[in-house]
């Protein structure tokens, strides 16, 4: 679902577009039909007066035509028309009409009154497709937006005259229906927040809880004089009511991906084992205003979100006039299953209880699949991922079957209670009993589904987690997988400022300083090369950091060789385990150091520094930003995405500067993910770069560097000499401090942010959330062109 038609509720100038649109399209109409139907299938469609708005809406076919008897003086009203399918089979044009799909659908639209206007006859061909098997369960997007179409997949009858949708007890018009999908329009004024959707289709019912979102856009001033500025605000209301289990990657609905790719060509939708996202794209369409943060800003929100789902920016006019800012919201979330709802009528109490038990079991399976997702988010092993994805699909399929069985049993029970013989009820009861005592499913629920194996470490390096099983009293872990840090990120405290050349304002800005100025330096150095003779370690850098007054944690794990079979020896299982346990303890020390460092940073420091050294891994499935690890395989690794995301959250608005150095191969993935965090707040290494200064972590300047590009290995030497740039900056700081020249770290911040970062193979720099004015970001070495290097 894409809210790209938000001009109807956006900024004031957009209203002009609406008026023009209404006038020019006043005579047009369109027939909406479900797109994928087979010959012989029952289906329903409807008539609309805005056919252009329905072009490229997924699942819907639009056949435009001109309404008869339209008057230039009055807007047409569909209630004045009839749709005739066959002679004598008429439907009000203001509602849905049903038909059986044949090679050609002959449709007549005529005036309902005594008008002498010629009716319109449409002959709509259908491709010779067979009816596809309908899905066994009901699913829909976990979000809805007022005034936009929603889709429900499920085993429908196809006849909209026997169907209804209630959204928070308000009737929602059905646009189209097939035997596998129902399309309805969410009422325009549905308030944002959690909403109940009750769907009836003949004697079948299902129920969803969805989050109704509204994209609110407003500006303090709607017309600007030349040089004048105004604040504008974009807010996604209702997103906080999305349930945690929906925050998984899933198929984007409709043309979302196409739309997104037009705006962000490098964005890759998250898979079912990745975190889900809401992507908000804000685009300035007017040439007479400049938008803070760039002409196009992409923001992503995931779970759990701290602060609002929105953005505050500034528009500054280069010419007097109004403006148009477009907002597009694109969800990448998991679809919601419909929960079983009792059929109309009275089943016997025992059948009802059995049906309830079946639905409960279906829910258990869905919970189980969510747990699997949670545990395997980020798993790097493609075979394990495939196995888990298959298992999740199997769980969901079984859940759908159980829901359907519950429905069939209740329906047969009602028929029996009403004196209508049901030849199948005994079979259904037997089937239900078998399913509830199914040893296969039962065992499936009780056994650990995922082997705890090295490398399967989505949460923390060096840890393995015990899979949860459904049906136990154990509380499911919070979903989806979240970064390793427990700290809650703070929202930007100030709006990115707009360019202003006035002397007065410059003087004001000079008086403002970073809130953490003078609060010291905190550094974390994780060094996987300290134990290797022919690798440059970071003990020297660590010492220099300490000498420069930084509170430095130097973590150089000493792993043991895990014995392997050789000509001389065959290790015992105990010997192997002893080495593995030792290495696990070393990984624990890395985790502890991360946590300790973040706690210190979150309290507020002038500069936060993280340096990693060792062997870098490239981006891989499930490991989109690669990893850092020791040279030998030691049972785990440090994920770049989680490491930097946790550090970003700790530093965000708590530091004057955040600096990272990744001295490993493929280390360019670090500036890449830092760029993404600094501007999009996510760590997918898939999102295209943008500029959103309000998301920068540090007040003054942030930077990230590496010894290699994001797609390249590196040499032993390059790791060393590129770390020399950091050493140079630290040496200068040490000298200044020895001479008593430094009261704070502003000089070191500048040194790290300028020559140091810009000299390295891959880098990202910005000027902080308080000072940045695009375009000033330096980017390089990871596939993004620098705005100031082009």
């Amino acid at each position, binding site marked *: 679902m894409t809210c790209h038609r938000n001009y109807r509720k956006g900024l004031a100038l957009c209203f002009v577009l609406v008026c023009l649109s209404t006038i020019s399209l006043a005579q047009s109409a369109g027939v909406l039909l479900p797109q994928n139907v087979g010959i012989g299938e029952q289906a329903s469609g409807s008539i609309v007066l805005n056919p252009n708005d329905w072009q490229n809406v997924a699942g819907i076919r639009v056949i435009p035509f001109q309404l008869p008897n339209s008057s230039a003086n009055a807007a047409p009203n569909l209630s004045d028309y009839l749709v005739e399918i066959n002679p004598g089979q008429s439907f009000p044009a203001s509602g849905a009409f049903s038909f059986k799909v044949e090679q050609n659908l002959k449709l007549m639209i005529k005036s309902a009154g005594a008008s002498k206007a010629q009716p319109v006859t449409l002959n709509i061909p259908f491709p010779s497709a067979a009816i596809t098997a309908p899905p066994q369960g009901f699913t829909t997007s976990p979000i809805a937006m007022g005034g936009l179409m929603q889709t429900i997949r499920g085993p429908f009858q196809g006849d909209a005259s026997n169907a209804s949708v209630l959204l928070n007890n308000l009737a929602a018009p059905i646009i189209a229906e097939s035997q596998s999908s129902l399309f309805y329009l969410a009422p325009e004024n549905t308030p944002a927040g959690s909403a109940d959707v009750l769907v009836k289709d003949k004697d079948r019912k299902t129920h969803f809880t969805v989050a109704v979102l509204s994209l609110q856009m407003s500006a303090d001033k709607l017309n600007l004089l030349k040089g004048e500025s105004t604040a504008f605000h974009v807010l996604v209301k209702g997103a906080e009511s999305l349930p945690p289990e929906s925050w998984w990657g899933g198929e984007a609905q409709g043309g979302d991906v196409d739309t997104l790719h037009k705006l962000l060509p490098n964005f890759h939708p998250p898979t079912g084992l990745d975190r889900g996202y809401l992507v908000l794209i804000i685009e300035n369409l007017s040439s007479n205003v400049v938008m803070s943060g760039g002409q196009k800003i992409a923001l992503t929100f995931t779970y759990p979100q701290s602060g609002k789902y929105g953005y505050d920016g500034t528009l500054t006019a280069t010419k007097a006039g109004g403006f148009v800012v477009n907002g597009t919201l694109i969800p990448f979330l998991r679809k919601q299953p419909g929960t079983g709802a009792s059929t109309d009528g009275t089943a016997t109490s025992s059948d009802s209880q059995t049906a309830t038990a079946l639905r409960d079991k279906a829910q258990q399976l869905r919970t189980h699949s969510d747990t699997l997702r949670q545990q395997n988010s980020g798993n790097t092993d493609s075979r394990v991922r495939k196995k888990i994805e298959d298992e999740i699909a199997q769980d969901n399929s079984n859940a759908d079957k159980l829901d359907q069985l519950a429905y069939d049993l209740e329906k047969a029970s009602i028929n029996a209670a009403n004196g209508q013989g049901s030849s199948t009820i005994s079979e259904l009861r037997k089937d239900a009993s078998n399913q509830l005592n199914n040893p296969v499913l039962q065992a499936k629920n009780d056994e650990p589904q995922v082997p705890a194996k090295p490398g399967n470490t989505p949460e923390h390096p060096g840890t393995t987690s015990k899979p949860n099983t459904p049906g136990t009293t154990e509380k499911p872990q919070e979903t989806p997988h979240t970064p390793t840090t427990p700290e809650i990120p703070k929202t930007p405290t100030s709006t990115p400022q707009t360019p202003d050349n006035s002397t007065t304002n410059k003087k004001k800005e000079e008086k403002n300083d970073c809130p953490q100025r003078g609060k010291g330096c905190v550094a974390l150095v994780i060094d996987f090369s300290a134990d290797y*003779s022919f690798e440059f370690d970071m003990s020297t850098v660590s010492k220099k950091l300490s000498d420069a007054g930084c509170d430095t944690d130097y973590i150089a794990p000493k792993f043991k060789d895990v014995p392997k079979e050789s*000509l*001389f020896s065959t290790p015992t299982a105990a010997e192997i385990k002893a080495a593995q346990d030792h290495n696990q303890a070393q990984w624990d020390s890395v985790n502890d150091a991360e946590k300790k460092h973040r706690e210190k940073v979150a309290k507020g420091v002038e500069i936060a520094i993280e340096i990693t050294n060792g062997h870098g891994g490239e981006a891989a499935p499930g490991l989109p930003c690669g990893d850092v690890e020791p040279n030998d395989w030691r049972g785990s690794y440090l994920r770049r995405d989680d490491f930097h995301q946790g550090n970003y959250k700790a530093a965000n608005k708590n530091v004057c500067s955040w600096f990272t150095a990744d001295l490993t191969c493929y280390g360019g993935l670090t500036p890449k993910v830092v760029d993404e965090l600094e501007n999009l707040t996510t760590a997918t290494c898939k999102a295209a770069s943008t500029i959103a200064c309000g998301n920068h972590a540090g007040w003054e300047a942030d930077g990230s560097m590496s010894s290699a590009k994001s797609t390249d290995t590196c040499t032993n030497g390059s790791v*060393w000499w590129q770390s020399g740039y950091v050493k140079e900056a630290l040496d200068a700081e040490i000298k200044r401090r020895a001479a008593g020249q430094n009261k704070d770290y502003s000089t070191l911040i500048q040194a790290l942010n300028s020559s140091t970062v810009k000299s390295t193979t891959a880098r990202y720099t910005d000027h902080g959330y308080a000072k940045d004015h695009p375009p000033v970001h330096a980017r390089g070495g990871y596939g993004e062109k620098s705005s100031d290097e082009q």
Partner: protein
Amino acid sequence: MRNHRMSSRAAIFLLALLPLAMSGQQRGKFVPPDFDRKMEALKNLEHGVAPLFVLGDLNEDGVVDEKDLQLAQAYAQGNASAGISCLAAGDLNSDGAVDAKDVTLFQQALKKGPIPAPPLAYHSSLRCDYKNFFVASMSGTRVGGTLPVHFLDPRFNAQNSSVTVQSGQATAAKNGNAYRVQVAKTAPKESFITLAITLADNRKYTYTFQVH
């Protein structure tokens, strides 16, 4: 594979900083004698490439024999380590020490006769001088990844020496003056691949690495 920014200026800069590297060796990290020269030979190779040592070859003469056993026995009994230039080579069970257990393993191996193709090893926390380091490689690689085998001794090169895959899902091919071992995408994670290395002087070695 070389870093594009590895300019001559940068190389000079590197050499100037090397003493710092040595002064920075803390926490018991062993720095072999003549480290600068050895590092110079490695600095333009892939990060992670290091010289291999011959497991069991404590005196680094290229063969594993009774002399090495005697050195290991003496060391295990607490006698002086004179003559041992690669203590790491005596840690046959990879437990981080050279002791009676290693001596027993050594005796058992030599009882079967001369060792025709001793195994090469990548890393140990114990010291090794790398007096005769002639082959350098990495500790392992990923599924579908590549592992280089470089000849550091000028007497040996990819033309007069060979690297073949003895076991495991991989292929080996010449690549300039080195060999490049390509691990199959179907290779199981955590499986082992063993290479057979034959030098120009007909000495044979094996090298086993793990796929991760």
